[in-house]
Each structure stands twice: as structure tokens, then as C-alpha cells.
């Protein structure tokens, strides 16, 4: 077993998108592909995103590559507040992406679970679109 889902979920512009800006919604598949208390990584719009499922069932999403030395953030250990990069133990706030250990911040994404128990990621394309 070596197959890993590498393709991003289908692009799915939401009809109820409250933001007039360039926010794209991505459905990344069922939440139970992420075990409680762990993270899994996804490719979204050419970016790597780590999505975490906290032990209370809620979701968090951060960019998946540690700004320090490129560590795989989705492999980190988490609690309700932070994820710790497995390579050099830099800690990042799961809500904001800010480092608690002096590293550059990770980008934070907003993410939720929809009625069908799918992961829905909001990707704000900032102001500039390329």
C-alpha cells in the first residue's frame, strides 16, 4: 500500500460564499481520513496544506512546510493549541500559524466540516491573483 491521494479536491466555488474577495473553497474529502489528534497533508492550488483534526473533533489548517528547515508539519505532534514540527521542535499556533519558538509564521487557513462530514478548506487568494 503506497498510494497516497495527491490530487487536490475538486474546486467547488460555494454558492453561499460570504466573502466577495477571491476565496476559493476546496472539498478535501471525508474528515475520517484524518485520525483524531493527527494531521494529514493536501495539495491545494499548488500549495501544501496540513489539516489537523483535534481530539475535540474540530479542524485546523496550516501551511504544511516548516519555515525553519522544511519539516513536514503534518507529521507533527499536536494538542489543542499548537503543532510541534518533528524535525527541530518549533511550535506553531494552530489558529494563527504564529510560531511560539521564534520561527517565521506558517500560513493559517480557515477550514470546517460540512454536513456530509467532508473537509472544506477556504483558500483566500490574498489580494493579488497570479
Amino acid at each position: 500500500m503506497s498510494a497516497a491521494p495527491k490530487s487536490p479536491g475538486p474546486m467547488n466555488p460555494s454558492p453561499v460564499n460570504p466573502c466577495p474577495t477571491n476565496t476559493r473553497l476546496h472539498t478535501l474529502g471525508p474528515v475520517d481520513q484524518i485520525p483524531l489528534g493527527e494531521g494529514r497533508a493536501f495539495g491545494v492550488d499548488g500549495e501544501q496544506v496540513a489539516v489537523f483534526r483535534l481530539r475535540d473533533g474540530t479542524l485546523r489548517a496550516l501551511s504544511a512546510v516548516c519555515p525553519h528547515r522544511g519539516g513536514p508539519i503534518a507529521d507533527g505532534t499536536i494538542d489543542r493549541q499548537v503543532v510541534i514540527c518533528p524535525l527541530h521542535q518549533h511550535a506553531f499556533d494552530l489558529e494563527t500559524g504564529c510560531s511560539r519558538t521564534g520561527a517565521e509564521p506558517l500560513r493559517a487557513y480557515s477550514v470546517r466540516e460540512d454536513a456530509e462530514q467532508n473537509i472544506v478548506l477556504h483558500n483566500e487568494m490574498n489580494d493579488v491573483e497570479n
Partner: protein
Amino acid sequence: MTSVLDRPQGRHPVAGPRRRLVVVGNGMAGARAVEEILARGGADQFTITMFGDEPYGNYNRIMLSHVLSGEDSDADIFLNSLSWYRENSITLHANVRVDRIDKFTKHVFSNDGRVTPYDTLIIATGSRSHMPPMDGLYTPGGSVKHGVFGFRTIDDTRKMIQHAQQDHHRRAVVIGGGLLGLEAAYGLKSHGIEVEVVHSGGHLMNAQMGPDGGAILRRSVEALGIRVHTSSRTTAVLGKDRVSGVSLRDREDIACDMVVVAAGIRPNVDLAVLSGLPVERAIVVDDRLRVQDEDDIYAVGECIQHRGEVYGLVAPLWEQAVVLANHVTGADPSSAYLGSRTATKLKVAGVEVASMGLHGPELDTDEHIVFSEPSRGVFKSIVVRDNKIVGATLLGDSRKVAYLTQAYDRGLPLPEERISLMFDVGGPGGDVGVAELDDGAQVCNCNGVSKKALVDTVKGGCTTVSGAMDATRAGKGCGSCKLLVRQVVEWAADGAVEEDPAASYYVPGIPLDKPSLMDAIRKQDLRSVSEVFTALAPGSAEDAKSKMGLASLLKMMLADHYIDERDARFINDRVHANIQRDGTFSVVPQMKGGVTSVQQLRRIADVAEKHNVPLIKLTGGQRIDLLGIPKEDLPQVWADLDMPSGYAYGKSFRTVKTCVGKDFCRYGTGDSTKLGIEIESRFQGIESPAKLKLAVSGCPRNCAESLVKDVGVVAVEGGRWELYVGGAAGAHIRKGDLLATVDDPEEVKVLAGRFMQYYREQANWLERTYSFVPRVGIEHLRAVIVDDAEGIAAALDAAMQESVDSYVDPWGERDDPLTPGQFRTSLPLTVLPQVPVR
């Protein structure tokens, strides 16, 4: 040709030429004096040149005891690295000795032929080990006999460690039972050497305490396994080319392989005598630290005599350096040094001794308060004159030391109820002392941190002891002030001090030490990491940093009854491989005892070829490491290998290294290979507070390096096996302590298992055996594990057996991943591995 003319420019251009300051001596006194001068703008006034006859920057000589005992590495004790001299534009002539001063033409002459002019000169030549007269100390050629050491410099210390670690060296005699001698004895003991202390005085540390305290100290020292001979004078060192023993007056000779002379120090005054400076017991200076009758020559540290006193301790030189710098720079011409009150502390783990001032009453009106409890090794004596402490000796209980030291130092008024000097008898106790300290009082003498600096740090929001120590560097020197630092922080935080989590908690997120944590887990029947957080964490909050330690502890305690939540594991333990810098993993199959076969090698070769493995590496633990495997390929690699995991990734039993053994080796005396394989088969994969690396050697040549393993076994002649524990040869180097010598390899397995179980139950999280063994002491371990003094041997064996029985090869998860996406890539858009294929 002068050195000062071609030195680099200082940072600030100033009007007029700078004067030339030359410092002879680069020890703690010389360097501290220069630091104080720089702190007073000295860089603008002077071009500075320093001479040191050791080839290094300046280091903390007090900490050599810790280096010898292995508690610190020699790199830890450097105070000023060579770059410090460059940054401060100081010309350092290291490894150069100054032979003569011409005080009339103001030049110094050094042994590299250099002639250096000065305007101001500081002599800080320190002192040297005193070699008392005895026969056989020197070879006919005039050098000290091989195996005889002083204990004064970093080189002395390194040579002693080297000598002690040579295998056939087993016995040492330390001449001198003072502070330094006892620290040397303790340090050698921790290298597994049998140590005897020969002391000419009637009791140990007779310069610091009276006979009552000395007798109790003797018991504590002997309890460490160090033999003590008092009232014994060493008359000769025996042995032709190398040490074979010592002769004592009126007693039997003692056989030994090394002799450490710690019979006091003598000021280095040769230079001053030769140069015509006034020398009595040491170089005579006035209250400004100026050499008597000299306008431009100062002296500081252990080489000086001030008002008849010669000091051999570090605290006075801090005070002297301040006064000297005030005068040399002109910052405070009224500054005067009036002598120091001295206090000393013995740096021997497990034997707390602090001493200051008088040992006993001298005037009829002196009060003398004494408490003695020999069975616990506790002795306290305080001498009070005019309601001030003029002397104190404290053994075996250091709780009031910080307060008493300050009360003695500053002459604080004392409580009427004298017993509260010795014990906290309710009421404010030690806090009173802290509150009464004035703001300017120096709490940490090594780093010059005042009470006010600490208080300001705490008021600024830093309310943990460790945080305040990090912020101010207080307590980061010799460490003897840590207790006082804690008291000041607690006082400043006014009860709001946050406990330092790392201090006693097993993991940072649960406020319990290991015994209490294990107790709570048992009592509340907690089976998983999330249950532990819910039941025991403040606010039931999960803590990422605590998860791995808790998972390991629960598995150790509960074996099959543990509910394994995979999110509590570190990534390595989730995927049974060691994560590498690019997010790929390394795969090390089990190769018991480092013995392999044609079939294994062929399979490993096939796997490496099939998966295009970037790097195939032989490990130090005698296995083969396949590096650069992407996470998603791990199950296939394991399936293709069809070998069990070698556990090269966990905080667990790793491997048993073996030598060739007696089947092939012509020196082998025991079947080390067979025993190594059996040990690895038995204990494979058991988790522990930190990794465990083992070895079995078939003879004392130790080809498997058994002396530097967490558990090391050596076969010796006569079919016997030696079992060493607590060795290390990684970031830290330590020779293991001999736990037992047994006849039967089965007994080796029992004792090794019992030791490992005791370590698993008692050690702190991530505490390797090289820290654990010296912390609890080899005598204690021997009592528990070999002699079953606590009656727990059967329970330890049973607990270990349960762990052994619950072993499952984790690589079996290849066919049936335990969690969804267990082996899914975590860098989906990155092409891995990112290393070149060799």
C-alpha cells in the same frame, strides 16, 4: 618590535593615544579584572594585552570538579572564548609565560622572546598545586612521575580522566582531604576507580570545620565508597617509572595506579620575586590592589597578600577586580578593598557541605549553636558574635545555606530565636533574609547579578525560576547560588512564582514527578494518554510536549493493558522509522548482535536496488541503515525485507553490539556473540525513558566498547562476566560503573533486565543512564539490583517479563495500517527524497 603597536584598532576613536595595559595571567582573576575594566570604558583608555601560560581562553576553574565527575563537559566551563578577546580588541598571547618585569623601563619579557612595554601592569599569576615533600614524586629526569597529577588546570583534569579511563587503572590515592581533594576523589570515583584519601589533618576539611563536623563528613564520604585515612602523612610515591603505590608513615603501603596531589595551593610569585617586587607569603598589595610602593603595577587574585591574608577562593577575586578596575580606569578613586569574608561549598553530589568563617567560638561571649544528627549525616554549627554570624558549618542539609551565607556576608541582624537560623520553624523563615537584602546585594557572584536585577526581571513578567535565570544569567556560573536565586524570585513574585515545570515534573504538562504520576495512573486506573490529560492535567488540557513521554511511560507500566492512541506518539513511533531532514525515513532491520547472513545481505541488497535507496550505511550499532525512504514506501520496503524492526528510531532498547567472540577470536574468553544475540532477542523493542545501547565483549580488550554503553558486558578470564552500567560515548563520554561480576550468562540477562526495569521505573524522561546512574549512585543500584536490599527484585523481573511478553514486531503493521493514511506522504507536492543518490 612590540605587540601592542600592531594590534587592531579599538571601536571608538578617542582623542590622544591610549595607554598600554598589560595583564600577566589569563585565569579567572586576570580575565575578570579586564572585564571590569572594559565595563568602565576601559577600551577607550587602553590598548590591552594579556599573557596566559595555558593555551586556551579563560575558563571557570571552580567547575573542573564537575568536569572530572562527568557532570559537565570541558567545553561547558569556558567563560571567555578566543573570540571574546578579538571582539574586545584584546591581544592575547596564549601559551606564553612572562619571565621578568623591568619595572624601571616598564617592559615585560616573555618566554617567546617578546618584549612588551606597558603603562599599567596587572599581575594575576594565580597559584599552583602544592607538591609536599616526599620521596619518589619525581623521576630522575626531574619531571613528575607518570601517574601523579595535580588538580589545578583543565589539562590536569583531562589527563586525569584519560588515565582513569584506561582499563587496567583501577585504584587511586588522593593526597589531601580538603575541599579539592574530596572533589577529586568523588570525580575519580565516578569513573569507576577505587579511591582512597590520605589526609594529614586529624579530620577531613579541617580548614573549614571542627572535628565534630569532620567526623560526620567522613561517614558521608565513606558512604560514597571512598576510603579515608586521616592523620596519615604520605612519605613516598612508589614505582620505578610509573606509580605503583604510596608509602605512609607508620602505616601499610597502599597500592594504586594513580596519585592525585591536592594538598593545597601556593601563590605563583616567582615572577614577582625575580622582578624585585615585594613578596611575603604572596605579592603584597594595598587597599587599591596596587603592589606596595609601585605606582603602575597592580595585582589581583590568589597571587596577592592583602592585609596579611592570602585567599584561595573565587569570591574574593570578584570583589578585588571591581576595586582594581575602579582605580585603573579612574572610575572611582575612593574605592577600597577591605578584605573578604569567605564561604566555601563542597561540590560533591550527595554530600552537602557549606562552611564560612569560624569553626567554633573563640571569645567567652560568642554564642555557639550546634545540631548534630550523625545517622542522617546532618551537622550544623553556627557561631554568633554581637548578634551577627561570624561562622557556620552545614553538612547534609543545605536548606538554610543561602540565607546564612548572605547573613554572614552582609552582617544581617539575626532572629532572637536562634533555632530559626538552622530550621524553618514556621513563620517567614528564609524569606526574611531575602527581604532584608538590599537591592544592590550581589546574588550571583559569577555573573554579577544583583538582587535588583533579578527582582526587575520578575516584575517584568518573568515569573519562573528558570526563566529568570535564563534572562539574567544568575546561577549559570558555578551554580552555588541557585538556591538563593530561587528564594529571591519567589520573594519578588510575592507567592505568584510559577513552578518551573522542567524542574521536577516527569513531563511538562502534568504537574507531578514520576513517582506521583505513576501512583496516580495506578490509583485511577488510567489506560491512555488522553485519559491521563483529562484526569491529571490542569484544566484537563492536552500538551503536545508531554504526549510522547506519557505514551512511553504508560506502555512501560501497562504493557498489554495500554490503550495505544497513535496521536500521542512521535512521528518515528507512528511509522516505525527515523525521520530525516527532508521528511524521508531511515530503515534499519534487526540484525541481532551485529551478526548477519548471506540471505539477509542478499535481501537487503535487493531491496536497496529495487527502491533505489539513496544511501546505504553501516551504523555504529552494527546494522545496515537504508536512508531516504519516502513514508509511503515504508510498508513495501518492510515487506520486501521481511525482517523485523531494528528499533533504530525510538526511545527504547536499540541494539546489542558484540565482538567476534571466542569461536573465531584467538583471545576470546566468553561467547559474547551468543550472549549478545540472546540479550537482543529478549529485550528487543522495550520502551524506556531514553534510548538504550548495549554491548557484549568477549574479553577485556573490549572490541564491542562495552565500557561506554548503557549496559555493557565483558567476559573475563575464568568464565566470568562483568556487567557495566551508565556508560556513554556520544555527546557525553562516561565509563560505565561496574554493577556486578557473575559466573553465568543467564545471570547477566537477569541483572541486565532488572537494571533496565529499575531505570525504566525511576529515570526521568529523556534521562540517559549516564546521568541516571551517577544520580542514584552505583552503590545504591548494586544494593537494589544485585543484593535485593529493597526486596523489589522479583517485582522488577516480573514487570520486565510482562514487557518482553508483549513484544510485537511493529513492522507487521505494513499489511494492516493502524490509522487511516498512516503512511501517507506529508509533503504531497515535494519530490522526495531530496538527497543525491550515492
